[in-house]
């Protein structure tokens, strides 16, 4: 039975899982709060999981790992910044609609009360068309470079980030919370979402558990949990959406196109179309993913921000056991949890263990080391 489990889970996951377990066990002994660590891990899981989920459609359709995730993220950033820029206008518009179509529940009070949620939703709604158009073009490009998708995708990510570096400066944003104070134009590198949709999902239905449990005279358990239920539910909804989509006729055709394009073609499937749809989906999920990330992180990071987002997501899904052409929701969950778990735990435990402050160095070593490890584990199923 154990052998069976190992064969199913795969050694990489077992090794990393055991390492993570060891870190959690060590944590209390070196003075790191177990529950805080666990909480951090769960929050980071929620933040990153949708971005990792964005890998699935492209992998399944045979377009490889989405190294071009920054493109989706840029669409998400456009959605977020535009949502803040036009926040007041959107509220006004909704109010107008309410009066015009006599929607009784849509009152000014209601809007003020749910201003944050509306901001979050409008960020996503604005981001999706951008992501769809960018994804469509990106998909067309990938169809021309079959076999070299991942290399091209990487450069699509790089160049789109560089292009947007110029664009963020030149786009005529006016909102005072977002533009450089001294110049009066151009977006800042980091924009706070405080007052817009900070922790909108994290706090929704959040389970807060704060108590000191006294086990004995010398041992007190300082339990401090705040489970971001809303964010987890949101991820579950997105995962369910992807899961259902992959089970539709189109999703099945997409999987077959990734598994054997010649077979799919002989069965009357338009392989290029399936690939384009998958890229559009991946890009949209990337856009939604970054907005979820922002609401928890608290900031919109422009300019070089999207640059570093693709590799952790790619590494997560590979750690989760996906291959270059097969990925499941379970791969996303397992991989994201392991990757973020290690990333949260290693710096804090090592810091306390060696009594130094080199958490940032350790974090970089661990995250890049895991990316490297995951990429060497890359398999073709």
């Amino acid at each position, binding site marked *: 039975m154990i052998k069976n489990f190992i064969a199913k889970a795969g050694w990489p996951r077992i090794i990393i899982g055991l390492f993570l377990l060891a870190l959690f066990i060590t944590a209390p002994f070196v003075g790191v709060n177990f529950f805080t660590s666990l909480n951090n891990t769960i929050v980071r899981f929620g933040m990153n999981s949708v971005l990792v989920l964005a890998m699935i459609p492209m992998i399944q359709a045979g377009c490889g790992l989405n190294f071009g995730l920054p493109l989706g993220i840029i669409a998400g950033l456009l959605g977020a910044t535009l949502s803040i820029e036009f926040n007041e206008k959107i509220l006004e518009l909704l109010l107008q609609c309410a009066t015009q179509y006599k929607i009784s529940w849509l009152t000014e009070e209601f809007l003020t009360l749910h201003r944050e949620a509306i901001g979050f939703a409008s960020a996503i709604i604005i981001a999706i068309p951008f992501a769809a158009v960018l994804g469509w073009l990106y998909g067309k490009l990938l169809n021309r470079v079959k076999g070299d998708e991942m290399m091209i995708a990487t450069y699509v990510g790089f160049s789109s980030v560089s292009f947007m570096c110029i664009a963020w400066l030149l786009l005529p944003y006016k909102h005072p919370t977002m533009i450089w104070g001294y110049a009066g134009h151009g977006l800042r590198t980091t924009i706070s979402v405080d007052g817009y949709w900070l922790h909108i999902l994290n706090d929704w239905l959040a389970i807060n558990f704060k108590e000191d449990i006294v086990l004995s005279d010398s041992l007190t358990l300082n339990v401090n949990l705040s489970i971001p239920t809303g964010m987890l539910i949101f991820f579950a909804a997105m995962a369910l959406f992807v899961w259902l989509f992959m089970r539709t006729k189109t999703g099945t*055709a997409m999987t*077959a196109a990734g598994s*054997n394009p*010649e077979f799919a073609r*002989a069965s*009357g499937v338009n392989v290029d179309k399936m690939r384009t749809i998958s890229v559009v989906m991946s890009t949209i999920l990337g856009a939604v993913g970054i907005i979820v990330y922002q609401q928890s992180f608290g900031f919109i990071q422009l300019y070089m921000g999207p640059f570093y987002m693709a590799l952790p997501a790619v590494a997560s899904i590979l750690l989760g056991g996906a291959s270059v052409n097969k990925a499941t929701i379970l791969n996303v969950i397992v991989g994201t949890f392991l990757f973020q778990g290690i990333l949260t735990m290693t710096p804090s435990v090592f810091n306390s263990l060696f009594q130094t402050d080199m958490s940032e160095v350790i974090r970089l070593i661990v995250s890049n080391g895991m990316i490297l490890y995951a990429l060497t584990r890359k398999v073709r199923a």
Partner: protein
Amino acid sequence: MSENVINTSLLRLEHIGKEFYGNRVLNDISFSIEAGEILGLIGENGAGKSTLLNILFGMPVINSTGGHEGRIYIDGQPVNFTSPQQALAAGIGMVHQEFSLIPGFTATENILLNREVLNGSLLRYLFGKRLATLDREAMRQRAMKAINTLGVHISTDMVVSEMPVGYKQFIEIAREIDRKHTRLLFLDEPTAVLTETEAEILITALKKLAREGIAIVFISHRLEEIKAFCNRIIILRDGNLITDQPANELSTKRIASLMVGRNNEQKDFYAEPIKLDKSEDKDEPDTSAPDSPDAKKKKKKKPALKVENLWVDMPGETVLDVSFEVMRGEIFGIGGLAGQGKLGIPNGIMGLYPAGGKVRVFGKKLHLNKPRNALNREMAFVSEDRRGVGLLLDEPLDWNITFTAMQMQGKFLLGIPHIFQIRNEIAMASEARKYIKALDIKCTGPSQKAGELSGGNQQKVCLARAFALEPNILLICEPTRGIDIGAKNLVLDTLRQYNKEHNTTIIITSSELEELRSICNRVAIVGGGKIAGVLPASAPAEDFGLLMMGQMRQQENENEEA
């Protein structure tokens, strides 16, 4: 070269046999070749010619699959080559069907590759041969000499990539005869790519070489060429040596029938279906005339498939201009040698390769070049490229069996059509189980991956996928390639049964003529991208053989003479 004329044979084979993974391809082959002799080696695709050459040339594929049986003697000395280098050293030269030339090199460089004439120099003295410079002039002379021996005029400085195929063939041969000690030359279809004049030049050159004492083994599908040129002819069939006779004792017709014929035991095995086909054929005496008045077959009148001037651009199987008709409920065979275009026909009709011409399905025009169009007309296709096109190797069996039906006909889906439907995995699995049982597919269940099955069972999965479409016309390529005899019979029986039960029109493309004759009503033989002729399955074997060789006319002439 000619000094060592010894009493013992130059090359003697004794009881050569070979098995690939339990599949016997050569059986007890014994013959010998004398110096200066030209031997013609004839056999259908898969008769064992290539394997025999591979054994003689010490190709690693033989050694890595457990070596061969029997013994080889050169000049009476037993030899056992484990690499082509050893064979070369022993004086065996080989010209393969595929060119092994370096495209960017000149004729000289290719002919003298690895045997270059070297200059003496200080560097060579200090660091050995690898740093020596080349004596280009001497090399040119040698290359010129080799080319001249062949009786052609090719510039020694011409780059191979710019040569016509005929020239490339000559360069290949020139390279072999430049080796000083080459005594035995194997030529695998050297004239296939040559024009008639070029072929004549080549044959003259080879005769000249033979006079100098080089023994030549010549493989060709052009029977008249072999008959005119060889001293002796060896015919292989199904891995057995069928005949070893002087060429002048055999007529072209006899060669053809020996090549394709089967022994009596196997004929009994196929007897029943052939008879069955014959009786059906009587109703439709001359097959090429579908309008022949026949009351009994009125319902079969309308052709299920009418193909006119079809061309298909399929690499290696180009179809130039093909027209034929297939009646409803008929089993129609397409045969011919590999590379002649028989596989291009079904692939082109199904839209898998660029094609043109007119194809009518039950009287209605079929738009080519999109598989979807053909599938929409209730046609199903089983590809010859099982692992490449026919299967989703990484997906479970139920996917493989139901996928096309799901995509094309919306079967095995749950939900509201056009709004939201997800696949019905229970229905998929039960459909798969149905075919697993019916076709006796050996597997652990519908969720096993197709890539894990054996070749024969994979073929059955491909058939199941076609059957799940419930087609009116079924196009099948190479249904029995690479599967064992038991699976072969089951596949063929299934096809027969399916044809009978559903009155499905079946078009089978196969390299195995005997198989086509056993199951089909009519068989078309394709040669050079065109249909060489359509014969009822009951036509004598040699007629098929002659059609394959593109020899119908010669045969008629011979008959007149006789």
